[in-house]
Structure formats: structure tokens, C-alpha cells
């Protein structure tokens, strides 16, 4: 019995680590705004066509901040933020459906979770001192956060915030 438990654990860990993050081979999407398709992934590269708002497209590949896309008329590079991807949600949809028990499978595992936080529920909520103390006890110092960042190879960058559009 004990041995079995271990086995399950190992299997579980294995799945956890190898959980798929890669995206589907071909992704589709739509243009979030009108933009120019370019021959290369640079702002000053030659134009290879125009992207029309809401136009469906196929995503061929990604390079940095750029996506190479194929529309009905042309192929070219466009900035990532000009495109709404349609199939990145594969992983997500599964997770959400299972987690919320709305997949129709009846696989609702968690019963402790609150289903659908509504404005009404939020208004009716009472202050919970125990949970608050817990939250406070779990806080991390700036120095510890810095150590954690370093251990992941993160280094701080300087950059100004973006200004609002128009």
C-alpha cells in the first residue's frame, strides 16, 4: 500500500514537470487592429501587405516581439500585440473547465472553493482576522525577494512606463 502511494506520487510529479507548455503547431488568430505586414521582423523593414482589423490569419512563427502571419492575401511579420491568438487557450480551457466543474464531466474535485465570487458575496463578506494573520505571516522581505530573483537569473532593467494611447 505504501509502495503504491509512492508510485502515484512519482507519477504525479512526472506529469507535473512535463506538463505541456508548447503551443499547437499551427495557430490561428485575428488582427486586433489595422497594421502593416513587413518582409522582416523590424519596424523599418519593407512592407509586404496590409493587415485589416478583425481579419482572420494563421500564425506561422514567433520571433521576439514579432509574429510571422499569413492572411488570405499576403504573408509577413507583424507586432505581437496587433494579433489576437485563437488557440493559446488549449491548455487554459482544459484547466478552467475542470477547475470550475463546468466541463459537464462532473469532475468537481474541490468543494472548498468558492464558485463565482459575485459582487453580492463580496459585499456580504465578513473580515477574517485568522486569514489576515496568515497572509501577514507569509510576506517576504525585499532582501529575500532579491535573492529569489538572483537565483532565477533575473536582473533588474531600467525602463520608462508606456504612455497612454493617443
Amino acid at each position: 500500500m505504501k509502495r503504491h502511494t509512492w508510485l502515484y506520487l512519482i507519477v504525479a510529479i512526472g506529469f507535473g514537470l512535463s506538463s505541456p507548455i508548447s503551443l499547437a503547431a499551427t495557430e490561428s488568430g485575428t488582427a486586433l487592429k489595422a497594421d502593416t505586414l513587413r518582409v522582416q521582423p523590424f519596424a523599418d523593414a519593407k512592407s509586404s501587405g496590409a493587415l485589416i482589423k478583425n481579419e482572420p490569419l494563421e500564425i506561422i512563427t514567433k520571433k521576439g516581439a514579432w509574429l510571422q502571419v499569413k492572411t488570405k492575401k499576403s504573408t509577413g511579420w507583424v507586432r505581437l500585440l496587433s494579433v489576437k491568438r485563437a488557440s493559446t487557450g488549449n491548455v487554459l480551457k482544459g484547466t478552467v473547465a475542470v477547475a470550475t466543474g463546468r466541463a459537464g464531466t462532473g469532475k468537481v474535485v474541490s468543494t472548498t472553493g468558492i464558485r463565482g465570487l459575485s459582487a453580492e458575496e463580496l459585499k456580504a463578506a465578513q473580515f477574517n482576522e485568522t486569514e489576515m494573520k496568515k497572509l501577514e505571516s507569509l510576506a517576504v522581505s525585499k532582501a529575500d525577494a532579491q535573492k529569489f530573483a538572483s537565483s532565477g537569473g533575473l536582473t533588474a532593467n531600467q525602463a520608462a512606463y508606456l504612455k497612454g494611447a493617443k
Partner: protein
Amino acid sequence: MHKSIFAALVTTAFIANVYAFDLGKALEGAVKEKIQETTGTKTEPANTDNADNQNAVADTPTAQPQINWKSPSRDEEVAIGREVTGSLLGAAPLVKNDDLQQYVNKVGRWVASQSERPDLPWKFGVIESNDLNAFAAPGGYVLITKGLYQTFQNEAQLAGVLGHEIAHVVQKHHLKVMQKQALLDMGAGLLGDKFGDNKLSKKAISTGAEISARNLDKSAEYEADRIGMMLAYRAGYDVYGLPEVLQNMAQINKSDDSVALLFKTHPHPDERLAQLGESAGSQLDKLKAGKTLENRLYLLR
């Protein structure tokens, strides 16, 4: 009192009662003046808050019988945020997993360290809810739901979402809304309304939710997206973490209960992405490639 406060702070706003306070409109002009003259906070971007550090030592945080709404101190701001957050925790407790909570605190604190208010007593938590949502309260409180956490594919996405909430705190979006309401109530008091002086602060907090619905408008959300995205980048992460989360959220059907509150209180993810794209223009082209750290994301099953 606890009860209603909470709602106020939340990133989300409550549309239902939006118009409940139209009566206050008559006073709005006067109140606006008051806010500007007494707090100097109009709509300018987050001013660097060096006081965060000193106040921690100078002011002893004690129970606040009265909040100075005209110009709340850092400790008062934290006290307000604590009330709000504690009520939210009353609706949805923390996920019982200290490893997860510490992990989120480390990422959050590191991202917050890149902001203009690195020394607030930042606290982060994941709450038991299958909804997709995240909340910020004045003074450095940030909560995200388990449902949202489970959509993350890497640490950069977590950092981007926390960055958005941190931005609300840094820009004092909710605090400003609450201050406005508090001053409105004071105005009502001056006009001989039934609220006596000693009830002012209480009333102000307890009506925060409705006010927040009316005033935490789209522009505050877009601003939090812009700032949050860059905070994650400043912290060394891939700048596209937040946009990726928005891309993922855009896939979910609007009628799904898990996003009902989120979509009610925020512009649709498509609009948020489009706004980010407009604001970014070519500015992200020259940024360094950041880290995504998918292998370090704490997996919550």
C-alpha cells in the same frame, strides 16, 4: 464596518449601485477642489513615495479611530487596505499551501521592488476561488484567485498580473476613489446631513465599493496594464507575460461564471490588448529579451 470596506478596494467595481450617489454630484466640484488642495493628488502619475520608508519608523501604526481622508498617511493607507483585504479573505480564504503562497510573495515582492513604492509592506496571496480575477487594495495588498493562477504557463505571466495589481496600488487608484467618496460625505455633513463628524470615516469606507464602481474606470485599468507590463520587464521578465494572460482570458466565453465579475468590471481583454498595442507602438522592439522561467512556476494542481 469590515463588511463593506472590502468591496471598495477591490480592483473590481460594482456596477449595480453606480448611480446611488448621484445626489453627491452637486458637491462634486467642491470636493474635487478639496482633494486637490489637500492631497495634491489630482491625476498625476505616481509620485515617488520616499515617505514609505520613514513613515514605517515614524508613525506607530495604531488603531485608527479616524482616518484623515484629505491626506491619509502611509499607515492609514495600509490600515484601509487591511480592512478591505480582510473582508475579501472572509469571502474566499487563502489556499492552504504555504509553498505556493511564499512563491507568489517572492515574485510579487521582487516586481514591487521595481516600482516607485518599493518599501510598502507588500503582501500577496492566492485565494480559494475558481474565478479568474485579481484584487488590489491600498497599502500594498494583492490577491489573485486560484483559478487565474492555474492558467499561468510561466513565471513571467504571474509577474505580469501581479504587476498590474501593484500598479493600482502605486497609482493609488482605489484610494483616490475612496478619498473622493469620503470628502463627498464630509460635504454632506457640512450641509447638515444626518452624519455627525465622528461617523464620517466609517461612512466613507463603507460606501467605497459603489464609488469604486463608478470611478475605477477603463483608463485606470489600461494604465495598470501599461505599468504592470513594464514592472515585470524591469524585474527581468519577458515583457509579454501580461499580454499572454490577456490573450488567454480572451478565449473564455463571456458568459462563463468564472469571468463574470472580471468582465463586468474590466474592459474586455481584446480591448486591453489593443490598447496595449497602441501604447507600445515600436517602443518594445528594442527591449532586451526577458526571462519566462516556465520551469520555476510553482505548479498547483
